[in-house]
């Protein structure tokens, strides 16, 4: 029983790590700041949830589980707020999202550099 | 190969220290210089902590060797090694460098603040924090404004 739970917990942790990798790839590949924020903030909270859930399963009913739950609560509170504040600041400072078909983005950027 | 593995930390730390030193020497901007100095200082901390690491060790917070964590740690180590390097059956890393660097970090940020405050005052007196421009102002004008 406990081995099965540990196995499930570890799998969840691996899933969380995969989500984090996908998020990082999104942050690298996406064309403008707002889409990157989308990639980063969603996968941050998602990966944290998966991973911490997995670790709670591994640690069982203990003070560790409580601490992990506190970490999860803090991440769920701070990470979206920080993303919101950051996009708000960026928009207020004049950073605008790129609109239109996404194939055009690279061309636009090259033209802007020229 | 094993020599490189054992000394990799020191080589990287020297690289980091020299990076910080290079920023401090080459940059003309006082704030950038302070950042370089802070990097240099952190790297010195990394060096100390590298020295205090004991292979297979754990943090210097007393652990019962019969507890779950204690057994998990000792499972990877030979009893011989634990007897030689450990204290009461558990291998700890050396706590002394930790103590020195812990206080050094907090003192470091306080002194960094003093350096930055001086840079701010220089900016208010000269209107710039670039070393070259300040030297130029000292040569041509009567010196600082305030």
């Amino acid at each position: 029983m406990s081995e099965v739970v540990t196995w499930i917990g570890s799998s969840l942790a691996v899933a969380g790590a995969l989500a984090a990798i996908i998020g990082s790839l999104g942050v690298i590949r996406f064309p403008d700041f707002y889409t990157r924020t989308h990639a980063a903030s969603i996968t941050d909270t998602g990966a944290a949830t998966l991973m911490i859930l997995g670790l709670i399963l591994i640690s069982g009913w203990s003070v560790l589980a409580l601490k992990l739950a506190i970490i999860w609560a803090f991440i769920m509170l701070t990470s979206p707020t920080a993303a919101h504040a950051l996009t708000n600041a960026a928009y207020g400072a004049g950073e605008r999202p790129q609109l239109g078909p996404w194939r055009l983005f690279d061309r636009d950027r090259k033209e802007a550099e020229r | 190969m094993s020599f490189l593995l054992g000394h990799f930390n020191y080589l990287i730390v020297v690289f980091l220290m020299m990076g910080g030193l290079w920023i401090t020497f080459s940059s003309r901007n006082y704030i950038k210089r302070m950042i370089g100095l802070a990097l240099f200082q952190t790297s010195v901390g990394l060096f100390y902590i590298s020295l205090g690491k004991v292979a297979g060790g754990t943090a210097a917070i007393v652990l019962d060797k019969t507890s779950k964590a204690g057994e998990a740690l000792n499972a990877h180590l030979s009893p011989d090694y634990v007897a030689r390097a450990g204290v009461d059956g558990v291998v700890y890393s050396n706590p002394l460098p930790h103590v020195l660097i812990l206080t050094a970090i907090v003192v470091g940020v306080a002194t960094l603040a003093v350096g930055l405050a001086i840079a701010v005052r220089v900016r208010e007196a000269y209107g710039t924090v670039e070393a070259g421009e300040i030297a130029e102002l000292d040569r041509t004008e009567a010196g600082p404004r305030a």
Partner: protein
Amino acid sequence: MPSFATPLDANTIVDIALLAMLAVIVVAVARTRSLLTAIILTSVYSFISAVWLVVMDAADVSFTEAVVGAGVSTIIALGAILLTRSECSRIPWRETLLPLLLVTVTGGLLVYAALDLPSLGDPSAPANIYVGRLYLQHAEHDIGTPNIVTAVLSSYRGFDTLGETTVIFAAGLGVALLLGFGERALQDTPRPSMAKMAESGQHVVLRVSAKMLIPMISIYAFYVQFHGDLGPGGGFQAGVIMAVAIILHALVFGLQETMESIPPQLARGLSAFGVLLYAGVGVVNLTNGGNFLDYDHLFPRIFEEGLPDSHLVGGHHIWGQHFGILAIELGVFLTVASTMVTIFYAFAGRAPDLSPHGEG
């Protein structure tokens, strides 16, 4: 002395990967001309080195590095570039040659010296066999705290820590003398343009989150403070975390509101009081017949014998050490927290001086 080879285990692999990231960041910081980028990258550097410190078993140091490096020093550096400028001038490549030469020579010498160092993790390295090992063997018996870093910090090397605390106090005083305590600048606060403020609305999300977070951060600071004997933590970390809570309040609700609840006078008073408390504990030991900061003599012997389960009558509690460490950690906490707040007030409270030279 038996030769020792560093094992290629998980620990070493993580160590190498993290150090490689640090090296990349240092190169990027050296290359960038934007100071803001340099500050952001330095905060990432702090995060990576904090993870590295956990891997290297330095849990307490990691704690400190995270809260200081990524938190307070980022904010102070931001305050500094707000008051100066955020770009540095281009350096002509000729002028980098001499520093490069110097750095290469110094680095070469250091590498040459480093080759003679014992391998990473060698348990019989000179650094690890003398006093560090003695502390590990005797701390629990002498001091009675499971966290040996706290035991060494506040009891064995208490005098050293008193010096460090005094340096922090003096540095805070120095910043305040250079930049003021923040009151002067508040009188002529520069007015941000109305249009800019209105566009952002009221920042409801931030304010609500901050209202929830600030009490939790404060409670967490006290947890770190009083749990420092048993796990990672102590006065230095707790002080910085407390200061971060106050700084968050100032960032979200404005400096003036924070100054109304925690006046600069209070901050600077407490900062001095902390050092005084620390040194005072030492003096109490002196009057009871011990050495300076030797907490075995914190209480008169006759009083300590009466305390429950005292080691003087064959019990487990070394009450003098317990209370001595508690008191001096409180002193450290007060000094560190209020000094960081004073420094923040000094930087944040100063009005940017807009002269023709610096367009930031």
